[in-house]
C-alpha cells in the first residue's frame, strides 16, 4: 500500500478528497452549478454564444405537456429522449428507427408510444435527476457516430471529455462504448477510456475497467495511434463552452456528429478522475503548471496553446 501511495504521489495523481477541496470546492461556486447541472440551460447558453450543440426538438416541463411532446416527435425517425438533470447517462432513451407508432431503441428493442409516455413521465417525476427533484424531459437530435470512430465504438456514441481548468484544457480522453457497457460511454459500466493527446488528438493509452488495453475489445481494432476526428474544433468548442459557466474546474463532453462535426453535449462540475488512468498520467503536475503560468486576459487560442504546451512538458513519468 505504501508503494502505491508513493507511485501516485510521484505521478501526481489527483485523489477525490484533493479534487473536492482544492479544485471543485475552490473554483466551482455553488451558484454556477445550475448552468451545468441543467442540460437545457447549458444548451441555451451555448446556442447564445454560437457554440454548436445537438438540436433541441421538444421539451416537456410538466406531466400535462407530455402529449404535446409526443405529438411533436410523432414523425421523427431518430431522436434522443433525455432528462435535463440526469447524471452518468441515466434515463437516456435513444430511438433509431420508426414504424408507425412504434419506434426502435438503440439496443434493437421495439417499444410503443405508451412506453415513451411512461419514460417521459418518469423523467419529469425526477426518477433520473440528481437528488430526485422534479425534472424536465427533452428531445434532441440523434447524433450519428462519425465514420472515423465506427471501428472503435460498438452499439453507442463515443464522446470526448476535456478537463478545463481556469480556461485551460489540461487533459482529455475519449470514452468508447463497448458491448459490455451496453452502448453507454460510461467507464464504470465497462466502456473503454482512451487518453487523447491534447496536441494532435491521437489516442495514447487506453483502459477498460482500470486495466490497460491496446485494442477495442469488440472490434479488435487497434486503439493506440487512432485519431479523434475534428479534434482541433472539438477542443475549441469545449473550452469556449466552459468559458460561459463561471466555473474553474469543468469537464466538457463533446460528441462528433457524422454530418455536423463536433457538438457540445454537456458540462460537468464534478468531473471524474478516471481520465488519469486513461492517460496514464496524473492531473496535479498540469494543474500546478496552469496555476504558475496562466496570465490574465489570455485569448481562447492562447489558452489552448498553453494547455498543449503544459501537457507536453508537465507530463508524468511515462516512457
Amino acid at each position, binding site marked *: 500500500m505504501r508503494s502505491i501511495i*508513493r507511485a501516485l504521489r510521484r505521478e501526481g495523481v489527483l485523489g477525490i478528497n484533493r479534487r473536492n477541496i*482544492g479544485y471543485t470546492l475552490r473554483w466551482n461556486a455553488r451558484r454556477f452549478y445550475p448552468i451545468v447541472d441543467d442540460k437545457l440551460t447549458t444548451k441555451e447558453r451555448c446556442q447564445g454564444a454560437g457554440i454548436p450543440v445537438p438540436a433541441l426538438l421538444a421539451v416537456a416541463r410538466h406531466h400535462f405537456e407530455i402529449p404535446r411532446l409526443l405529438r411533436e416527435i410523432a414523425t421523427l425517425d431518430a431522436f434522443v429522449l433525455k432528462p435535463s438533470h440526469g447524471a452518468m447517462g441515466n434515463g437516456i432513451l435513444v430511438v433509431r428507427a420508426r414504424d408507425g407508432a412504434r419506434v426502435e431503441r438503440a439496443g434493437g428493442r421495439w417499444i410503443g408510444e405508451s412506453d415513451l409516455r411512461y419514460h417521459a413521465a*418518469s423523467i419529469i417525476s425526477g426518477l433520473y435527476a440528481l437528488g430526485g427533484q422534479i425534472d424536465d424531459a427533452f428531445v434532441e437530435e440523434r447524433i450519428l457516430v462519425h465514420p472515423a470512430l465506427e471501428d472503435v465504438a460498438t452499439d453507442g456514441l463515443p464522446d470526448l471529455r476535456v478537463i478545463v481548468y481556469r480556461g485551460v484544457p489540461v487533459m482529455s480522453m475519449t470514452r468508447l462504448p463497448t458491448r459490455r457497457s451496453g452502448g453507454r460511454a460510461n467507464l464504470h459500466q465497462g466502456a473503454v477510456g482512451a487518453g487523447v493527446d491534447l496536441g494532435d488528438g491521437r489516442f495514447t493509452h487506453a483502459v477498460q475497467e*482500470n486495466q490497460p488495453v491496446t485494442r477495442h475489445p469488440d472490434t479488435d481494432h487497434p486503439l493506440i495511434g487512432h485519431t479523434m476526428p475534428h479534434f482541433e474544433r472539438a477542443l475549441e468548442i469545449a473550452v469556449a463552452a466552459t468559458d460561459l459557466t463561471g466555473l474553474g474546474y469543468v469537464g466538457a463532453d463533446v460528441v462528433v456528429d457524422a454530418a455536423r462535426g463536433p457538438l457540445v453535449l454537456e458540462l460537468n462540475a464534478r468531473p471524474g478522475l478516471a481520465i488519469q488512468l486513461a492517460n496514464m498520467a*496524473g492531473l496535479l503536475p498540469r494543474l500546478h503548471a496552469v496555476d504558475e503560468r496562466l496570465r490574465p486576459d489570455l485569448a481562447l487560442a492562447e489558452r489552448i496553446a498553453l494547455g498543449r504546451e503544459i501537457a507536453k512538458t508537465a507530463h508524468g513519468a511515462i516512457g
Partner: protein
Amino acid sequence: MQRNVVVVGALFVALGLGVFAWKTRSLGMPIIPSGEGPWRVELEITLRGEGQRGSVRAPLPSSGPGQSVFDERTASEGLLFTIRTEGGQRIGVWSGRLSGVVRVVHGFRVQTNAVRVPLPLQAPQEPPREILASYTAATTQLPVHAAEIQAEIARQPLADPRDPVARVRTLFTLVAEEIGGVASGSDDAVLTLAAREGSPLGRTLLFTTLLRAAGIPARVVQGLSLRGSTAVQPTQWTEAWIDERWVPLSPVDGFFAERPEGLVALHTGEATAITATGSEAIGWRYHALRESLRQEELAAMMVPPNPLLARLSLYRLPVPTQRALRAVLLLPLGALLVAFFRNGVGVQTFGTFMPVLVAFALREASLGYGLLMVALIVLLAILLRLLLESLHLLLVPRLAVLLCVVVLAIASLALMGSFGGSELYQAVLFPMVILTMFVERFTLVMAEEGLRQALGRAAWTTLVATAVYPIFHSTLAEHLMFGFPELTFVVIGVLVWMGGYTGYRLLDLLRFRAFARPPENPA
C-alpha cells in the same frame, strides 16, 4: 492540509481536551466507569383535576437490609410536598390545587445488594403476640378462612408447629412446584389455588395466605425489580416472621430466606398504595437507569466542587431526558466513523448519515433482528419491483405501496415470533421511519443505477452501521460523552481535520493501482 484547517481543528481539540483534563485531573472525575453502580429510579405520577384541592400519597422506600436509598429529590408543579411516617412506612404526600394535568416526579438513587437471612437450626422463638395477631389475620386478598385454603392446609403433610421453617418449606415447595405461573393467570389467591396456576401476584398472595393459614405470620412486600440497564418492573414477594425477624421468600422468583440483588422494597401490603383524592384520573409509572459509576464517583460527577460545573452537570436532569441525552450525545461519534468510512476509505452509503440512523435503530432492537429486517425489506423491494415494473406506476405511489408491504411484513414477522416463542417481535422495535428511508434510497438507486449498485450500497450501509453499533452499546463511550460533553468539541476538531484531508482514499489506491506497476515499454 491547509494551515487554517489545522489550526481551527487544533483549537477545538484543545478546548475539548483542556476542559476534559481539568475535570478529570483537578476535580477528580472518573474517566473509566468502574462498572455497575447504583440505580436512579423515578416515580412519575400524572393527575388530572378540575381546580379542586386534592392530594396524592405514594409510599417511599427506606434504607434497610438489601437496599440503601439516598439522594431523594421531588419535583411537583406547585404542590406541597411532605413526608410522613405511618407505622414505620415512609409516605410522600403532595397536596394542593389540582387544575388540568399535574405531574409529580419523585426520584431517588438506590444501591441494592443480595442479602441472605440465616434460618434458626434450633427451635425458634415464638412470634410476639401482636405480630401473630396482625399477620395471621384474614384480609380480602388473603382469605385465610376460605374453605379451599383450609382444605389445602389440611391436605399438606405439615411439620410440627414448633418447627416453622419446615412448615414454610413445605408450602414454598407446594407453590413453587405445583402451582404453575402464567402471566395472564388469575391475581386471586383462591382462584389460583383452584386452577393450580396463576399470575405472579396470584401465586404470591396464595403463598402468603397459606403461610397465615398455617399459623406463620406473613406479609406481602411491594417493590420494584431492576434488571439490565433500564428495565424496571413492579413486583411482590413474601416475608414470613421466623425467629424474631422478617425472612424474604418468593416461590415465584425462586428465592428462599434471601433477597437477590436488584430488588427494591417500597412498602408492605397486598395492594399498591399510590392513592389520590380530589383527582379525576391518576396514572403512574417508574423509570429507572443504572449508573455506570460507583456512589463516590457519581458524587464527583454530580456535584463537582466548581459551582458552574455543578449547574452544568447533565446528571441532574430527569431520568427520561438523561436517557435520551445519553443516546444523542453518542451520535457525533457515529458521525465521525461515517466520515472516516466515506472520506478515508471512500465507500458509498445511502444518504450521509443513514448508517448512524440504522445503528441508532439497532440500539433499540438487537443487531441480529435489525440486520434480518434490513435483509427482509431489501428482498421485498426487489420482489416488488419485479411485480410492479410492468404497471408503469409513478414513483411516490410505488414507494407507498412498498411501505404498505413493509408494514405487513413487520406485522407478520411479529406474529410469527409470538407463535414460534422466539423474540422476533423485537423487530417491531426497529423504527419504521428509518426502514422506510432505507428502502426508499434502495429503490431509487435500483431504478437509477441498477440492482448491483443498490445492493453494494445497501451492503456498505449495513456494514458501516454494524461498525457504528458497538459505539452505541459501549458503557465507556456513553459515560465519556455524557459525563464529559465537552468531548464533542474534540470530535468537531477531528472532523475539521478530516474535512481538510486532501490525501488519497483507500479506494483511490485500489482504483489507481495501475500507476504503481512498472511502465510497459512504449511500442
